């Protein structure tokens, strides 16, 4: 059916079996996990890598001369190199481990933007942002007198590059937007927008949380200045993520938290800060998290990002077709270029009721505003239900979802 050699070898059932949690039951039914955009599950290899680290190698990093500390340091720094390769960052000095996307964006808002922004300067966002890419900018705008501007979305849930062109001006200092919308699935043209912003001297931050699990990201090709993502949406652990930043910018930024590991020398008169990337990693880092993140990247590589992408896009097409056939169902977010995320409403049934009914059938979907209230306001809905797919999703999961929607119809008939 598919001529692509990478895809034809893709065995979704085998991938599904790599994830131990997926074979459990929920409410007496086999689990059908369609909430990977909120947090994906972890393959056995990631769980084992973290376990192995905890059992055999743990000690604090960058501190001891003893064997365990050296092993832990090697594993932590190896993870940094794996993250660098994963998104093709220019150097490991540009790879900062954070708690996740939210912390990465806050770091840039507070360390890059806050010292630079003047009253009346503009921060440009889009109408489809997650709250994590809105609130940090509102905070820094309040602190500095800068103004937050918003590129609108259209009825398909897209942003028009022409609107960026119109709204970026000589006062625009920062342009921040999602690579992929968590609520709608829309993929944004990062390269084009970045070029527009750079042409007017603005710095670009991209929220990549929903992009990195689904498509190959090449930061040197995209050209943006900051890129933020989390491990737990790409089959890794929670509490770890990365900020990739252009070295020249990171170098000019003050540390955002003080503590151990981010200093070279401390006296009560003066502290000399450590070099990149350690300057931004105060305190003992999430070492086991980084090990797990590297294992998640290894796992993705073992399947092939291209094959994952093809698989998910195929599921997206099938799911879109089957859901469109459900009476009263409306898909919210119909951009031609989408990640495998489908937000929808069902006439006469509030998404929250839908979520409960689907759960009794073992089907896990996200219901609510998806931390994107402005998106909900734009479409005039209080909430949506959202089914999101991952490398382990199967066509039978879509059928289970459709059957459970039928059950919801019955309850509310």
């Amino acid at each position: 059916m598919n001529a692509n050699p990478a895809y034809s070898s893709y065995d979704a059932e085998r991938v599904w079996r790599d994830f131990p949690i997926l074979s459990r039951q929920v409410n007496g039914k086999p689990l059908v996990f369609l909430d990977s955009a909120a947090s994906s599950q972890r393959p056995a290899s990631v769980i084992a890598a973290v376990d192995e680290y905890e059992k055999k190698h743990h000690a604090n990093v960058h501190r001891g001369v003893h064997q365990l500390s050296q092993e832990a340091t090697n594993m932590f720094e190896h993870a940094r190199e794996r993250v660098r390769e994963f998104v093709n960052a220019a150097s490991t000095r540009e790879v900062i481990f954070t708690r996740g996307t939210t912390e990465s964006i806050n770091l840039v808002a507070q360390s890059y933007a806050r010292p630079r922004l003047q009253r009346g300067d503009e921060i440009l966002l889009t109408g489809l942002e997650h709250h994590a890419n809105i609130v940090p900018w509102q905070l820094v705008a309040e602190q500095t007198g800068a103004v937050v501007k918003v590129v609108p979305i259209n009825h398909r849930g897209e942003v028009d590059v022409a609107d960026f062109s119109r709204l970026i001006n000589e006062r625009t200092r920062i342009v921040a937007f999602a690579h992929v919308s968590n609520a709608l699935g829309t993929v944004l043209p990062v390269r084009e927008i970045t070029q527009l912003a750079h042409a007017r001297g603005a710095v670009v931050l991209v929220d990549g949380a929903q992009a990195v699990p689904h498509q190959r990201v090449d930061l040197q090709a995209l050209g943006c200045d900051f890129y933020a993502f989390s491990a737990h949406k790409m089959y890794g652990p929670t509490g770890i993520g990365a900020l990739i930043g252009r070295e020249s910018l990171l170098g000019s930024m003050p540390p955002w938290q003080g503590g151990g590991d981010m200093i070279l020398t401390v006296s009560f008169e003066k502290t000399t800060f450590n070099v990149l990337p350690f300057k931004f990693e105060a305190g003992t880092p999430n070492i086991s998290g980084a090990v797990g993140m590297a294992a998640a990247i290894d796992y993705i590589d073992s399947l092939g990002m291209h094959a994952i992408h093809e698989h998910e896009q195929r599921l997206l097409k099938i799911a879109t077709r089957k859901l469109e056939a459900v009476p009263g169902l409306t898909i919210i977010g119909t951009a031609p270029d989408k990640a495998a995320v489908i937000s929808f409403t069902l006439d006469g049934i509030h998404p929250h009721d839908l979520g409960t009914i689907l759960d009794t059938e073992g089907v896990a979907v996200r219901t609510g505003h998806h931390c994107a209230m402005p998106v909900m306001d734009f479409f005039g809905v209080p909430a949506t239900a959202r089914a999101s797919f991952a490398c382990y999703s199967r066509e039978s999961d879509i059928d289970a979802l459709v059957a459970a929607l039928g059950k919801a119809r019955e309850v509310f008939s």
Partner: protein
Amino acid sequence: MDLKDLYRDVILDHNKSPRLFGKLDPADSSADGHNPLCGDRLHVTVRLDGDRVSDLRFEGKGCAISVASASLMCEAVKGKSRAEITHLFNEVHEVLTRHDAPVPEDLGKLAALSGVREFPVRVKCASLCWHTLNAALERSHEPVKTE
């Protein structure tokens, strides 16, 4: 967990045709309620006759549980004194949150909400209207949150 226990006929009926839906104008007091988890928003207006709620209305958007609960609440408290309303609220709260609480006989139709306690994440949906009514009675105009 039985869905039929949550979505009883009384609940489905009040969701489909909510009673006392709308807005009193003029009103003696009002309050807004908001459940950020699911986006439910309620607006409750009340008319007072001394210590009694002589009339009330609710409007807003929400899930079946929150709409039905608000509708059932409005029917149940209309004409009641503050003390009687507080008593009912305490009973409803107990039934919603305590797994083994007996369902008091004087709850009437409100007893239909007892299935909610098998679905802990939905308790806030059912209690939002009561918190909102309380706020209106306390003459607070600050939006109420269930968080």
